């Protein structure tokens, strides 16, 4: 492309984007949302301190089993009354479900088409972007959003054969979610108290049970990433620390019936994060494969079963040695690395346990295509 072309593109982008007039800046609602994030970060930090204290008292083995089990809250749970109903005949267009949590009523309304599909659940929740449904072999894809304080909402499409879902909660309650059509797909929605966990979601079709999902919890946020066939047990639960650094960042992998989930904590980032992926959905390069991607400043990738460590050269020329961790029952190794504050990664080399070079590449080792 010529310099003139570049100049023309700059000019066109400037003109066309510059003419967009967004709604006035919603300063008040952003500050309220920011305060909720801040409170959540403080609560997470307090939880972290509690976990560290528990580790000191109980020992790492107990702590590991507690985390692997999804960190269930100890003590008697408060009572919650939760309901979900399909929309009534007089419901407005786009309403796919209504319900209540301890007398507080909610209504899930979809809008948009194609990549712009999103859900609103009232003023307390930010709009949940859902996008174009891509279910692959999933029976349902539930996206989540939070009011930042005490409730989580889950909304998403279900696969064509699904007639309804049942959701079993930790206190014994069971919800029935009946899909409603919107923009060529069918969707379900539910709102749950943050402290009330889902034990299992089961999808039913015309001829009976199609499959089930056991969620993984990122704090109070459930991730339904792996749908198992009836009778299929899924992976045994196992946990491993896959990386940590002097700036207190850490990445931990959890394998279980939910697939593989990684939680990331980086005090220099914007808060705790993580991601999940079904074992069957791994895209793999020669030596390393892309996993969920980036949470905060920490990147996590997969390594072939024989990779023991990676030597990664940063853009500034410094080299970091990243040990590959293995979790019982998971077929690949996992590597986590802190992204440099400036620049990125220039190249990487993978070695086996005997120091033999297995492969190399340019750029980011955990973003191979």
């Amino acid at each position: 492309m010529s310099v003139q072309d570049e100049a023309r593109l700059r000019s066109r982008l400037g003109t066309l984007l510059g003419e967009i007039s967004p709604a006035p800046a919603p300063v008040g609602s952003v500050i309220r949302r920011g305060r909720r994030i801040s409170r959540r970060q403080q609560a997470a930090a307090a939880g972290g301190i509690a976990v560290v204290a528990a580790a000191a008292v109980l020992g790492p083995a107990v702590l590991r089993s507690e985390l692997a089990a999804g960190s269930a809250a100890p003590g008697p749970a408060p009572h919650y009354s939760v309901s979900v109903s399909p929309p009534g005949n007089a419901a407005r267009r786009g309403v796919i479900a209504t319900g209540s949590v301890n007398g507080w009523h909610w209504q899930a309304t979809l809008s948009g088409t194609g990549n712009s599909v999103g859900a609103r659940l009232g003023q307390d929740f930010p709009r949940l972007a859902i996008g174009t449904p891509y279910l692959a072999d999933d029976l349902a894809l539930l996206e989540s959003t939070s009011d930042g304080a005490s409730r989580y909402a889950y909304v998403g499409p279900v696969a064509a054969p699904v007639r309804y879902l049942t959701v079993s909660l930790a206190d014994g309650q069971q919800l029935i979610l009946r899909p409603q059509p919107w923009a060529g797909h069918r969707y379900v929605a539910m709102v749950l108290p943050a402290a009330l966990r889902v034990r299992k979601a089961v999808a039913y079709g015309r001829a009976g049970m199609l499959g089930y999902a056991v969620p993984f919890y990122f704090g109070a946020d459930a991730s339904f990433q792996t749908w198992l066939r009836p009778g299929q047990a899924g992976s045994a639960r196992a946990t491993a620390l896959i990386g940590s650094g002097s700036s207190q960042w850490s990445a931990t992998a959890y394998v279980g019936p939910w697939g593989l989930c990684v939680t990331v904590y980086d005090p220099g980032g914007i808060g705790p994060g993580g991601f999940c992926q079904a074992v069957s959905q791994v895209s793999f390069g020669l030596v390393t494969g892309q996993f969920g991607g980036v949470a905060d400043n920490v990147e996590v990738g997969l390594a072939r079963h024989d990779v023991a460590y990676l030597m990664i050269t940063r853009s500034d020329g410094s080299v970091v040695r990243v040990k590959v961790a293995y979790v019982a029952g998971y077929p690949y190794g996992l590597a986590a690395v802190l992204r440099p504050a400036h620049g990125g990664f220039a190249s990487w080399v993978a070695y086996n346990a005997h120091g033999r070079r297995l492969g190399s590449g340019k750029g980011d080792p955990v973003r191979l295509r």
Partner: protein
Amino acid sequence: MVASADEEFSEFMQGRWSQLVRLGYALSGDLQTAEDLAQTAFARAYASWWRVRRADNPDAYVRRIVVNANRNRFRKPRVSELLTESLPELSVPADGVSQRDDRAVLVQELMRLSPGQRAAVVLRYWLDLSEAETAALLGCSVGNVKSQAARGLAKLRASAALLEGGLL
């Protein structure tokens, strides 16, 4: 956060809101999503305001959140990108018809680029960031920015829609 810090944040947000929404629009192709992305960025900036205000470049901080939040929109599902035969419908704000059409064509062509190419093109050629600034914001090398931007530009240059519309 004390009132004066709230005022400071309010001023910061007011001054950058439009530009961040436009960045989100160029990356996502959807105005509603763009406003959500910008809100997310500012809310997170507020939550870490004591750190953001001390940063050398607070603008880079919020832009980075928008870029990452847009990337993460597709991350929770199992695929990071969805390849379809037809492009998704694009929402277009109400304004002059010809400008709206031009913008729709340009954004449609931007959406045809990979997320990395799109981000590199938008940051380099709209926000006018240097290659080093773009690399820092995207968390990749300068070489990667160069190649992503070059590939993105080459694709745009080959676009019949842009050429026919006299947009390039």
